[in-house]
């Protein structure tokens, strides 16, 4: 650092040149590239065959898993829903449903329905009249 301040430190280019000049160049021409390639590939072919077989087996499992996981999740959710619904009291729901569905649309229907049992086999008109009287709070 002191040298740097005094200006004695060589610039990066000089350092790079010195490093390159002093370092042995890779002897690319001395290498038998075909032989090296051949040595690599002689073993690579075996490795590739082995790992490819392993990968195919694994890919198969992975493919099934990728499809199986969502299917399982949906099935589990559906099963849970069925179980939850199966545990609820169904009868009151049906009654409620029928009650609402059976709500008379007219006042006459209501009165007839309510008055009918009170007067046995009386005529519908009489029952209606009596029901109207009863509905209004008068004695028959």
């Amino acid at each position, binding site marked *: *650092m002191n*040298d*740097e301040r005094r200006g*004695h*430190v*060589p610039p*990066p280019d*000089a*350092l*790079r040149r*010195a*490093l*390159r*000049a*002093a*370092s*042995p*160049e*890779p*002897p*690319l021409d*001395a*290498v038998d*590239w075909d032989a*090296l*390639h051949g*040595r*690599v*590939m002689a*073993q*690579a*072919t075996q*490795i*590739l*065959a082995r*790992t*490819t077989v392993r*990968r*195919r087996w694994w890919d198969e499992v992975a493919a099934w898993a990728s499809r199986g996981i969502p299917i399982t999740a949906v099935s589990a959710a559906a099963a849970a829903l069925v179980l939850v619904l199966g545990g609820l009291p169904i009868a009151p729901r049906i009654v409620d449903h029928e009650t609402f569905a059976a709500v008379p649309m007219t006042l006459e229907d209501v009165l007839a329905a309510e008055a009918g049992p009170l007067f046995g086999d009386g005529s519908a008109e009489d029952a209606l009249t009596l029901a109207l009287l009863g509905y209004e709070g008068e004695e028959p």
Partner: protein
Amino acid sequence: MGMGAPLRSSAGAGAHDAAPDPAPDARLVERVRAGDAEAYGELVRRHMRRAFSIAYRILEHREDAEDVVQEAFLRALERFGSLEPGRPFAPWMYRIVVNGALNYRRARSVRRTEAIPEDVRADGTPPDGAAERAELRRRLKQATASLPERQRTIVQLVELEGFTSAEAAEIMGLSDGTVRWHLHQARRTLREALAPLLEEER
């Protein structure tokens, strides 16, 4: 660390072969994934020179570098599944080469005390004009040997092989900023160690 950028190499004066175009690499990689041995042969052919050059920078020995390259290509194939889809092949491959060379050098340093100099003639005398170079080389060897391994490797990749700091970062599995910092530190150490010699050279 981002590994997305394809490695094209800055190919400085010291660099030999630029890294091959990554587009054909991607197609070859897909074929290799499908079990195509011929495609892997093509990948090896496209990258073995640069791989050898990198290994040689670290080991400074031809046969050792060849062994490392051979081993690296086989190791790469065994780990091919770890090469994420879309990730460029070259920096991933060169990282395997660098790691292999560093491991080899560590193991070799146990066996040998010194690398065999290759510019010595059969009769043991250095070639003409090699005395100064030998001195510079000796000083550089001392200086580079004093560097931490990571800094030394970064210097070899950037200053000698011509990779950019970003490319070296991809190969080393570091961030660009970290590589730049190490490079700065290494340059400062080397400049201080070599200042007298470089001053004479000017």
